[in-house]
């Protein structure tokens, strides 16, 4: 457990930068090219972790990404997240409140 936590502490700044990168690429649901550009970043990350990633193409929206990482045991866990956002072409993120809060349209958005 300590090992996991130490690694994550060590990646703190890098992780925030990665989030900023995702957020600064807009991905409003109807902007399919924008959405797929963010999708490409996610695919690259998943593949780096050993996931086989399949793109589920549809004719209205960006591609849905389905990743699979087999394990030796019997159990399987599914994580679901979406990478389209409500706000199309949002303004770039900016620090606020001494940067403990960061304005990030789409970073969190989500419930419908």
């Amino acid at each position, binding site marked *: 457990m300590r090992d996991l936590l130490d690694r994550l502490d060590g*990646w703190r700044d890098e992780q925030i930068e990665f989030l900023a990168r995702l957020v600064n690429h807009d991905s409003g649901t109807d902007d399919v090219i924008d959405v797929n550009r963010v*999708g490409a970043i996610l695919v690259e990350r998943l593949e780096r972790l050993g996931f086989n990633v399949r793109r589920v193409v549809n004719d209205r929206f960006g591609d849905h990404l389905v990743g699979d990482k087999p394990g030796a045991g019997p159990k399987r866990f*599914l*994580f*679901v997240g979406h990478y389209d956002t409500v706000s199309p072409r949002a303004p770039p993120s900016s620090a606020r409140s001494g940067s403990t809060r960061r*304005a990030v349209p789409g970073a969190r958005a989500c*419930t419908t």
Partner: protein
Amino acid sequence: MKGGLTALLYALRAHHEARTRTWDETSLSVVFNADEERLSPTSREVIGAEARRAHSVGILEPARPGGEYVMARKGAGTFQLEVTGKAAHAGLQPELGASAIWDLAQKVAALHALTDFDKGTTVNVGTVRGGERPNVVADRAVAEIDLRAWSRPEAEAAIAAMQKICAQPHVAGTTARFSGEVSFPPWPPGLPGTERLLEIMRAAGRDLGVDVRAIKTGGGSDGNHTSAIAPTLDGMGPRGNRAHSAEEFIEVATLLERTKMLALFLDRWATEFEIPSGPR
């Protein structure tokens, strides 16, 4: 949601690089869909298929503003009401007209009266459009309606009531058409599978000194779909507030905390979660 995706990718990376037993033993699926903000019309099926293959599901939606996980969500549906009337000059021959707006307005009043906060059933007419000019009796008016309810019977009762209201003409010469459906089924409170995942998350929280709480919410997510298929816990992402507004923000410090929670949760789930026997 991008915060939740980031948290997951780093939690998994920690397991991957530490070569944990959890990583070696556990099969992992992810679905990152691109249409959730439109109620997942083209991804619902693939999410369902992946949920059927999985023993549990984690939804990466943000934590609630107080840091709570999400253990239940109201069902949600969108409905359309279109009233057709008869146009006429408002000054010359108003008696020949049938105002779609006047009819719709009375239906809107009745629809809003269906809201019952005690039961948690809400009906909101979110948009109305109609008419062309002030001096014309409007021959068309359209409303879009949002329905939320905690259970399927409650939703069905509300839909029946809405149908009745919409079928009742208030202005002679108008007709109404009502359509729509519940696109996010209710995820009712108290599902045993969700409770089990919450216990595991609470244990992960004790490891980190984080007090884990969970709430029910009226907002829909893909957890509405998966909770009917496999044990589901939602709100696993970082904390923020003001979703869907220009002031939306993330509490940056919670990104790391939620990432750690995800990593430890997965570790515990891999060893502690028991696959239920028998068919689902």
